[in-house]
């Protein structure tokens, strides 16, 4: 563990890294503990996951909750949809670390319900959003060992809720895009991938920075020059999420515990790892 606590990102921190300039810094890092400097970001992520078993707990709880919510959704008389497609190969990536449930309920299902039923249906969704936000916040907090302020949590919760809402707009605003040509598909995929890479660090930036714009800027700048590894991580997270959730009974638990935790830890580690100011400092040496 770090000997120092860094309340915000304006602190100049040095990282035990060698993937940028080939040198090995000897100064400590919030995610390194003196004797454990890592030669790669992946090593740092895996080290965090190995050395802090408690990191797995929040998203395990979320997985159990999602399993219960799936059960309720499947047994109530309101419409549901599978959370993924029937395709054997799908990338189910979300910007925020979440668990993947087997079912989801679009906004269309909430219209013209009696109050009691509406309250039940909305409560299910709110419980899920709240639990996922809390799990992400706790995991990144314990990974970074930084005391994020509660206000930042609510910003994080609002951001997560917005993405959760957008994913459930249903038939009214169809965000599906089916390209008519291969070239159009490749271009669309390239644009989406670029945006996903640049926004990869946005969730953790919300917890570090003041304001949405500052967080977006931080995510954008810190992800520069790291497109390939971040894209690879997005594909791995997306593939794993969509694949694991298809396991019967325990799919949601496994998907949340493994993918949600890995995603949150990766965010916390890489946010510091890709600190541009540190890169510049290290490079000058």
């Amino acid at each position: 563990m770090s000997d120092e606590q860094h309340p915000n990102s304006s602190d100049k921190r040095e990282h035990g890294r060698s993937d940028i300039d080939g040198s090995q810094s000897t100064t400590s890092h919030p995610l390194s503990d003196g004797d454990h400097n890592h030669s790669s970001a992946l090593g740092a992520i895996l080290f965090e996951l190995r050395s802090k078993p408690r990191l797995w707990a929040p998203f395990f709880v979320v997985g159990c909750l999602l399993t219960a919510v799936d059960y309720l959704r499947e047994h109530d008389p309101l419409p549901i949809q599978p959370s993924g497609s029937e395709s054997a190969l799908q990338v189910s990536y979300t910007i925020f670390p979440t668990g993947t449930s087997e079912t989801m309920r679009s906004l269309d299902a909430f219209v013209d319900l009696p109050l009691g039923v509406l309250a039940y249906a909305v409560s299910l969704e709110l419980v899920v959003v709240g639990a996922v936000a809390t799990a992400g916040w706790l995991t990144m907090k314990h990974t970074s060992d930084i005391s994020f302020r509660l206000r930042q949590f609510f910003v994080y919760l609002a951001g997560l809720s917005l993405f959760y809402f957008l994913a459930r707009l249903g038939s009214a605003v169809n965000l599906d895009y089916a390209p008519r040509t291969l070239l159009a598909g490749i271009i669309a995929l390239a644009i989406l991938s670029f945006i996903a890479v640049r926004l990869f660090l946005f969730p953790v930036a919300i917890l570090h920075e003041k304001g949405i714009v500052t967080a977006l800027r931080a995510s954008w700048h810190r992800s520069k020059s790291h497109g390939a590894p971040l894209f690879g991580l997005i594909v791995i997270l997306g593939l794993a999420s969509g694949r694991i959730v298809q396991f019967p009974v325990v799919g949601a638990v496994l998907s949340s515990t493994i993918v949600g935790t890995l995603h949150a830890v990766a965010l916390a580690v890489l946010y510091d790892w890709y600190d541009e100011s540190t890169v510049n400092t290290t490079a000058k040496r």
Partner: protein
Amino acid sequence: MPSRRHLLAGVGTVIAGSGAATVSGAIPETTSSAFDWPMSQYDPAGTGYNPDATGPTTEVEPAWVHESTDWFRGASPPIRLGDTLYATGNGLLALSVDDGSRNFGYRGPYTSSLAVADASPYQTPTLAATSTGGIYGLNAGGGIEIPGFDRAIGSQRWSGPPNADYRPSIDHTPTVNPIADDGVVYGPVVGTNDIVAIEANEGSVRWRATVNDDEIISASFGRPTIHEGVLFIANWPYQVSAYDLTDGSTLWQRERDDQMQLCTPVTDAGVIVTSRNGVTLLSARNGEPIWERDLDGNATDGTAAVTDTSVFLSDGLETFYALDLETGETRWSTPFDQETKPVVADGSVYAVEQNASLVAFDVETGTEQFRYDPPEVPLSPPIIGDGRLYLVNRNRVVALEEST
């Protein structure tokens, strides 16, 4: 084991208790009336006969015409629920029965006629529709309109099998009209040899049955019908089948000699099955023929309308028939071009000839009462209300009444 509704009612009560209206659009009047026409061919039995409805019997003129919705292109018959007329064609259009003014409308891949189904716990019924993409459950209340977008949140509750992308077709009505009974929607699954029963509130499949086990997708279905807990359906080339409504188990299946088994309107007397050459009355209990008539026709589409005493149908070539329901004997016949889907009420039978011209015949004599030729084609089969007929005519929805 508590039912889904009981489970939900319990949880909902604990959380909030009351049952007052909440997140919703302007919930339209969807109460039923004697003039409701809740699905194509009027009822689950597919009789095309509403004894309470009255239609015009002399020359007609438009009571109103709705043609101001630019995206609307329809060919399937409308339905009526309370004071609202619903029509499909590139979307769903809900109009006032009185004057044709638009209550709501939004785009969507809906091409078939609709079927009204109870959708408890929702406060508004579900309207089932089909297209080349599958079966859809729409909100009869229209949902919450997004101004300026011809879209509404909560407009489509669910989509069902095969859950495919909508594929445009040159056929005006490329899929079979769905039917609904007691909160369940029934219809063929596009691109398969299957029929399916879907819960109207949530879109889950209650049962799915395969009429033809051949790997080659070959079944071309007629509109299914329901009578006393049994679902009947005819399919190309030779089959007529009966399924238990509760679980989809096969009660009987008959391979007919005549090609093109087209429809299965059903009454207490039995199941009327029209085919390429003629028409047959089958026993609803076991599918055995009660009587058979070879009309020397050539029908590849269309259906029959059935009253308590008569069967009305076209032979697909050049004659329209009224047959005795008990014996199959001809009561009257009159010249008529091609196939049609007739409807009956109050002494008149109405049929659209060549998808272009509406003709009314006296039920007892076959005398032509009037003919209406709209400015555009295709013209859908009509539905009958309180002295009016309602039809879809390409980009128009029309109400016809007797000329003053």
